[in-house]
């Protein structure tokens, strides 16, 4: 992986949802990049804007209420934001793929698994011997007995198996980037690990970049090279997994790290972050995390925090916090 | 489905219906008395006079008065029929949902069967034997609507009986009928009211249709369906005889439907799917 060669570059992305109570900004100026063959983790609680960021990149925001207000999303050097729906349709699946959260609902119940895999192949200009290609693809994602399963309907499969199929669909067009939106959350714990291994295996074989969205820092440690931490629609910290885990530079990251159960330490109670993420229309001028932050002072509450170097002092480690230096 | 300004529309239309309740005082003529010298008078604006604002029928009866009086049949039948149907359906629904088991199975199969027999067929069979009558219309109405109440009430009773406050009452030794009447029924009232309102339009159209076909309200009552039927053969020359009574049906049903929708959203949003 070459650090200087981003395949996906998101810059100052702002996304709005037009709700009946008025428009709210769910993604508020997010910038990050993903390099070829790299796995980037996007971490945050629900409501932090991480899924909306993913949907913005795919340009499949909820209709008709979602829209990208400003910013750019460069995939392989080409900005996706101004593309028409027709042009975007050609990008999806071929250049960028996505794995959704819940395998139980993300496959179409009325078509066989094979039909849905073959459709993905056809979209990517594959012709001839499609059934065999679909079977091969299913084998690639470790679906046992693929010859038979290709004719099965989704409801006849387990969740883990279905998520493998979704994985197969996402790689059918050999995309350069795959966005995985909490792909293991709905799976059994034992299956989760297998699935992560599968993603690693896919990445090694195809060299695709993966954007892995999760609230689970344990998974990030296991799978990702770098991560960004999101809070209330903004990125609060960014860096390599090693740097961020060793020297978390935002109080929110610290709190998140505390809430990860350690295998070697028996934890009776997860360290809970007090309070809830702010409702997005309530966000004021200062740092969004201030109301829950143990270090917050008047300045935090009134002035938006600057982006500062992370405590690791690594050149690619940043945090958006006034109090970064006070963390120990 | 709609974000139309429901309440104003409904009220506006209601204004058109209300006079019907006072038909006796408002109507300019006796709806039954014919004036053979004023036969087939066109309505005002089409060569007629204010004496007969909506014209007259072939016996010279005032259409406006007949339509006003006809409202009694539309509204009366639907109220009586729906009241009986609602009580019957609610009772059976409560029994079905509370007792469950084979009673439930039998009652729900009966609902399916009444839904399976198109109402007009029942009316046909009945009318063939006894001739058209008011009682027949009410019977058909009850037959058509009790199942809606039974089904919905049963579903809610089933879920309510598992709720804490019902369980507590049971533990406290309340008898079955007491639980049903004191704890379950009051919680279903909203649903029943909404369902009843939503059925009014259906029932008015049903009554009008049966009357139109001559298997509903017997002549010479000025029921709207009969008025439309009166004008059917004259549509080529005297269009107003059929047009205005039908318009009365349309406006009435439209307004009760709008009110019903509004009431549903307000009282019982979960019925939306139904």
């Amino acid at each position, binding site marked *: 992986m070459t650090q200087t060669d981003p395949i996906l570059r998101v810059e100052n992305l702002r996304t709005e949802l037009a709700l009946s109570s008025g428009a709210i900004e769910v993604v508020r100026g997010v910038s990050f990049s993903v390099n070829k063959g790299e796995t980037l983790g996007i971490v945050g609680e629900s409501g932090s804007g991480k899924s909306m960021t993913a949907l913005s990149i795919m340009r499949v925001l909820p209709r008709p209420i979602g829209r990208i207000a400003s910013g750019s999303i460069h995939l392989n050097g080409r900005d996706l934001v101004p593309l028409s729906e027709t042009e975007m*349709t050609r990008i999806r699946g071929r250049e960028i793929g996505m794995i959704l959260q819940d395998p139980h609902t993300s496959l179409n119940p009325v078509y066989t698994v094979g039909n849905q895999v073959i459709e993905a192949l056809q979209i990517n200009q594959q012709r001839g011997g499609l059934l065999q290609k679909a079977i091969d693809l299913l084998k690639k994602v470790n679906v046992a007995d693929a010859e038979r399963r290709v004719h099965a309907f989704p409801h006849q499969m387990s969740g883990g198996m279905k998520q493998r199929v979704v994985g197969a669909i996402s790689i059918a067009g050999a995309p350069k980037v795959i966005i995985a939106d909490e792909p293991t959350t709905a799976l059994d714990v034992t299956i989760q690990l297998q699935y992560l291994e599968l993603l690693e295996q896919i990445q090694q074989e195809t060299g695709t970049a993966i954007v892995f969205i999760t609230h689970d820092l344990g998974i990030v440690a296991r799978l990702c090279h770098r991560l960004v931490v999101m809070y209330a629609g903004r990125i609060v910290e960014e860096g390599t997994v090693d740097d961020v885990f060793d020297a978390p530079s935002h109080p929110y990251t610290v709190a998140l790290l505390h809430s990860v159960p350690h295998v070697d330490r028996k934890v009776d109670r997860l360290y809970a972050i007090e309070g809830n993420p702010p409702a997005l229309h309530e966000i004021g001028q200062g740092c969004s995390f201030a109301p829950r932050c143990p270090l917050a002072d008047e300045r935090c509450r009134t002035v938006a925090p600057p982006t500062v170097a992370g405590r690791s002092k690594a050149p690619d480690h940043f945090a958006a916090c006034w109090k970064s230096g006070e963390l120990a | *489905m709609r974000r139309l300004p429901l309440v104003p529309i409904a009220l506006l239309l209601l204004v058109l219906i209300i006079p019907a309740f006072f038909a006796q005082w408002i109507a300019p003529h006796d709806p039954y008395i014919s004036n053979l010298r004023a036969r087939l008078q066109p309505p005002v604006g089409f060569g007629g006079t204010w004496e007969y604002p909506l014209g007259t029928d072939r016996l010279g009866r005032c259409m406006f008065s007949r339509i006003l009086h006809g409202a009694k049949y539309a509204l009366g039948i639907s109220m009586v029929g729906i009241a009986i149907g609602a009580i019957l359906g609610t009772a059976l629904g409560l029994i079905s949902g509370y007792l469950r088991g084979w009673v439930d199975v039998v009652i729900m199969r009966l609902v399916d069967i009444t839904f399976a027999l*198109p109402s007009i*067929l029942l009316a046909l069979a009945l009318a063939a*034997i006894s001739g058209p009558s008011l009682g027949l219309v009410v019977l058909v109405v009850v037959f058509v609507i009790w199942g809606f109440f039974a089904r919905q009430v049963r579903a809610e009773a089933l879920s309510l009986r598992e709720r804490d406050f019902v369980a507590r009452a049971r533990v406290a030794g309340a008898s079955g009928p007491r639980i049903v009447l004191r704890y379950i029924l009051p919680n279903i009232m909203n649903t029943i009211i909404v369902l009843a309102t939503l059925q009014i339009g259906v029932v008015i159209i049903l009554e009008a249709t049966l009357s139109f076909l001559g298997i509903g309200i017997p002549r010479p009552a000025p029921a709207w369906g009969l008025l439309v039927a009166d004008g059917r053969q004259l549509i080529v020359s005297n269009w107003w005889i059929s047009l205005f009574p*039908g318009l009365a049906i349309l406006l009435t049903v*439209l307004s009760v439907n709008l009110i019903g929708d509004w009431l549903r959203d307000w009282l019982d949003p979960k019925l939306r799917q139904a």
Partner: protein
Amino acid sequence: MLTFLLKRTLYALISLLVITLIVFSLSHLSGNPLDALLPDDATPAQIEQVTRHLGLDRPIWVQYLTFLQNAAVGDFGDSLKWKGQTAAEVVWQRLPATLQLGGLALLISIVVALPLGVMAAVYKNTALDAVATVIALLGQSLPAFWLGLVLMWIFAVILGWFPTSGYGGLSHMILPAIAMAWFQVAALTRLTRSAMLEVLDAEYIKLARVKGVRERSVIWKHAFRNAAIVPVTYFGVLAGSLLTGSVVIETVFNWPGTGWLAITAIQGRDFPVVQTVVLFFALLFLLANLIVDILYALIDPRIRNT
């Protein structure tokens, strides 16, 4: 799948049995059936003959069984109004006319309502959606018989585009078919729209989009196939309403089908014919519902496999 269908068939048979019971009771419990069967000026000899012929002197359950037995082979006795023909023959002759009209109405309902409902959902809260809403609202509130008359008045009497009434080719059928279909279009549009809205929110639609499926294919292949389950289940009711509608519309337009026959038979106090029509319609209705169950299973593999 097989058990599912067997169960459904059994239900349909039970329903049919109950309906025959209702029809039978109606003809026997509401006074002497002879009143209905015989003209007012019947001679004692006629009464005697009909009584014996109908087995009215036997126990009631024997009468019912006989009635069932006869019904099973389509024997409902002779028509009283159309002399020299059995009731079954009279009904059978009128059937093609009803099927023609009902078929056209069904076609209109589907061809108009499904695309309209789908588009109203896809273009939610646009002008198109508003049009669909108004159609749905009017459909619920317009009495079909009056709509028929108004159509006749405007398009046949005033504009002269179509014949006013009577039996004939397509030009005779258009107005009655539209009047018949109107309510169905409204109901079906509403159902399709709400089913589509629900489906369009589903995760598998999102997956279809992210995998690069073209929008048209997302709507028709992925969404509509799932949403179609709802309107398909409605086709049973639809068939029933069309039968009911045929009674009304055929009467309005003097279309000589079974519905018109039923009303004419009532006026002529021809009870065997009325009874035949009622049972025949009930049978058709149950059959339609059975077909719906089969379609339902074909569309939704989850049912097929249980």
